[in-house]
């Protein structure tokens, strides 16, 4: 039986191999995500953690999820090509802290979905509640994940229904209307 970690690797391969991602234009930079290998910035272990967290934060629903649009690859590129050494180190430190907190009762990456959601929900709740000061790194990570997701074609066009050329300005639209822009 495959471990949770092996299943995750398979998932990454199935939804986001290098060739497919490059072809759909969603991933400006993605190196060696497939098979659990390291990225250009992330180590193999970090890539696995980022992938698992991204998948839990923005899962596949009727629209693509974070892994479908390769949020981990986007973030690997971001940390490699945009971030300064200081920013990259802070991000890496945040990942270590997130993993430490999530693995208090065992390896987070080995948890099943129910347990993983429970652990991450608790962390998320603390980060936006009583431990806001200590968990700034998590909030920053979540911001990168969310922004990366909506910066991809799948996130922008399918989930947000972003329209390239609205052609008009309507200042008053009922929210029940799914129309984007």
């Amino acid at each position: 039986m495959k471990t949770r970690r092996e299943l995750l690797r398979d998932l990454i391969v199935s939804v986001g191999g290098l060739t497919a991602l490059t072809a759909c234009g969603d991933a400006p930079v993605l190196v060696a995500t497939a098979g659990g290998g390291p990225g250009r910035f992330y180590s193999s272990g970090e890539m696995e953690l980022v992938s698992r967290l991204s998948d839990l934060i923005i899962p596949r629903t009727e629209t693509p999820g974070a892994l479908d649009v390769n949020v981990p690859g986007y973030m690997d590129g971001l940390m490699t090509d945009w971030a300064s050494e200081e920013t990259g180190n802070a991000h890496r430190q945040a990942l270590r802290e997130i993993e430490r907190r999530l693995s208090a009762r065992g390896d987070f990456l080995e948890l099943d979905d129910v347990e993983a959601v429970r652990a991450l929900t608790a962390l998320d709740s603390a980060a936006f509640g009583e431990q806001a000061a200590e968990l700034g790194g998590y909030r920053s990570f979540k911001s990168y994940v969310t922004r990366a997701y909506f910066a991809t074609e799948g996130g922008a066009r399918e989930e947000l229904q972003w329209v390239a050329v609205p052609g008009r300005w309507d200042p008053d639209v009922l929210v029940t209307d799914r129309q984007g822009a």
Partner: protein
Amino acid sequence: MAEAIEFDAIVVGSGMSGGMSAKELCERGLKVAVLERGPEIVPERDYSDQLAPWESRNFDNVSQQEIEQHYFRQYPGVSYAVKESNKHFWVKDDEHPYEEVEGTSYDWLRGYHTAGRSIMWSRQTYRLGPLDFEENLREGVAIDWPVRYQDIAPWYEKVETFVGVAGSEEGLSQLPDSVFQPAFELTGAEKAFKQRVENAFPSRNVINARIAHLTDATEEQRSLGRSNCQARNRCHHGCAFRAYFSSLNATLPAAERTGNLTMVHNAIVQSLEYEPETNRVTGVRVIDAETNEARTYTSKIVFLNASAIASAMILLQSASERFPNGLANGSDQVGRNLMDHVSGAGAAGIMRGFDDRKVFGRRPSGGIYIPRYANITENDKPFTRGFGYQGGARPVGHANGQIPGIGREFKESHRRPGPWRVSIGAFGEQLPNPDNRVTLHPTRRDRWGNPLALFEVRYSRNEEIMLEEARKDAIAMLEAAGCEQISSGPVNLTKPGNRIHEMGSARMGRDPADSVLNGWCQAHDVPNLFITDGAFMVSSACQNPSLTYMAFSARAAHYAADLLAEGTL
């Protein structure tokens, strides 16, 4: 040996005012050379407005290392506008350095290329009002404007008709209406804010921002390839629809189609040639930015439109035996009275009652504008002059992921607009002060041999008090509008220069002893020299000034053309 090339008129600079000067001179039949210090912008190649979000990497952010190396002044100054895909619109600070006098700081934010900063501006467009031309005299501040509102009103009308300004007629004396195209309608929260604030403060108005975007393009505008705004809000990247006004979208094509325009790129002006026998400028010496080749262009008249700072520097660089302190600087006012607008005070809050509403389209600029009321309709202020607010109301959204939750619910929460946030920020008037100035650095030179700019600009106590009051007023208006969770940080004045409204460095006036230009933007000391960028401004008012620069440019161009036709020049 430098080659001399003869024109009727030379316009130095192709930005907001230079484009208008060139258009009007060309349309009057003059052969005009526009000398632009930067490279040519080719929209099909250089605009990035049609990139979708997923076609830019790293959120379209310039890398932090590159900011540190090349954009260490530009990016902190205008981080909202400097992106990876449009960074070529902004100068690299390491290639175009400047200096500040110890204890002062200045944001000199620039774009060197065809159309200058008219490509990157934020497009808020307002007339000055009658009071703005009279307050110096009434209060004994600096010198009197030699021009009154009625002198410039017809030129505002002419320029606005060409430019295209979306706005609403309000009939306010302190902010005269322009020739308008339909305004971008206010959002529901903005309409509520307007109603509540105007009820609570009858002496204040909340109006549509006035912005230079086409919403009902005229035949003339369409003939230049311009069309209505498509509500994409990609304006800082250029506009393939030519819907917002820029020199590249409007005035330069209009000048070009006369057949009288010669555009010269990469031409960095070193100095103006002055002939003491005739008391005329005879030519412009330039150095090619790429080849370092020296050339001289000659003409009957010269318009300086290089920006208030660069035009002053060109005069200072053109010292001669007749003008040892710089060309046309008999008054010693060149480089002085450098003004900008001052921001750094405002407030924001959540307005309930609109959570079931959202918008379609991305409004390109503006929202609401609160015209100046201080010392006009309210006279109990502990400062002189006043400020206007720019702002708007829009859904907060959750694009940064800064709300609790994970999974489907978190993901789909982004479909909902979230609460509506109202924000307003002040733009205040900076008083003229002769000690606020740009001079030539005594020792440092750029790679082309020109002296670096040396800035010495400080705010006065009036600006500090004004912005403190602006913060209090902003909070009071948000409270009156029923906003919740009102936030307003301590007043933190923007650096001088940060609003990119440089003006005052060669002011106009009636007396050659205390001003550089007469009321026609013509140099007192050198009759065939005109300066119609922000340098001519005698006071800054608090309105965004580009429209005023263009109106004075058009007026001066026709005046100069008339003098040439009469044989006076």
